[in-house]
């Protein structure tokens, strides 16, 4: 497993734990009220699990498993995927800042734009690896 996939997947596991922790508190709160402010963490719960866990673990696996080139570099333009990793994680926290922490009206749209850019950079990297064994 390449180093960048290890970063993606370790980060995804951290978000899995964060997302499940927040989700467990919210679910327990439904059955046995803990604190009314907990509901403000619902957007963070969704963000951690959808983007932090599902999208990130998928990108990590794809960077590892998609067909590689016969010659070096076997995974072309890895810098595009590195930028995707950085932008995705920045975007997640901007969205959480804008929703759960109510840091300001621009955090949510800017966060979404950064996440969109992350996906675009990852697609640019992955596109040329989506090929048959013959490279067609």
């Amino acid at each position, binding site marked *: 497993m390449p180093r960048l996939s290890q970063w993606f997947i370790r980060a995804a596991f951290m978000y899995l734990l964060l997302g*499940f922790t927040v989700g*467990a508190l919210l679910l327990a709160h439904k059955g046995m009220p803990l604190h009314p402010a907990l509901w403000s963490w619902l957007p963070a719960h969704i963000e951690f699990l959808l983007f932090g866990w599902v999208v990130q*673990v998928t990108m990590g696996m794809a960077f590892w498993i998609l067909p590689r080139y016969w010659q070096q570099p076997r995974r072309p333009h890895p810098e595009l995927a590195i930028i995707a990793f950085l932008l995705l994680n920045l975007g997640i926290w901007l969205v959480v800042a804008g929703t759960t922490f109510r840091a300001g009206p621009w955090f949510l749209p800017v966060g979404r734009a950064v996440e969109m850019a992350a996906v675009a950079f990852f697609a640019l990297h992955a596109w040329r690896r989506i090929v048959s064994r013959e490279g067609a």
Partner: protein
Amino acid sequence: MPSLTRWYIKSALIYLTAALLLALVLALPVSANLPLFIRYLNPAYFHLFMVGWVTQMIFGVIYWMFPIITRAQPRGNARLGWASYALLNVGLLLRVVGEPLVGVRPAAGFGWLLAASALLQWLAAVTFVILTWPRIKEKYRGG
């Protein structure tokens, strides 16, 4: 494909089917006069999909495909893997039962079902991460 992965993936497919069946029922018009508890299954539908299908499928594939630790114990402590599987599924099913019960009869004392469900699912995630963390590494090259 290891036995635990087969259980994860087959369970995931059953949850996907259940989630879509529930989605169909929830989409019926009000005139269908569904029992009240069905209306409280909306969050359960989403979690059957995201936890039962998506997360469980990912867990199964990860357990199968990640680099092995050693030839002697390729996927780590298998008991931890089975514990994670059991905790996740019992926890999720408790939610499916508990959420409509709490919704329809909030004063009947079923809240503990949701707290138990929360704890079990959280433990499932922690257990799976502990089991898998040592396998996030370069390919096994012996030794």
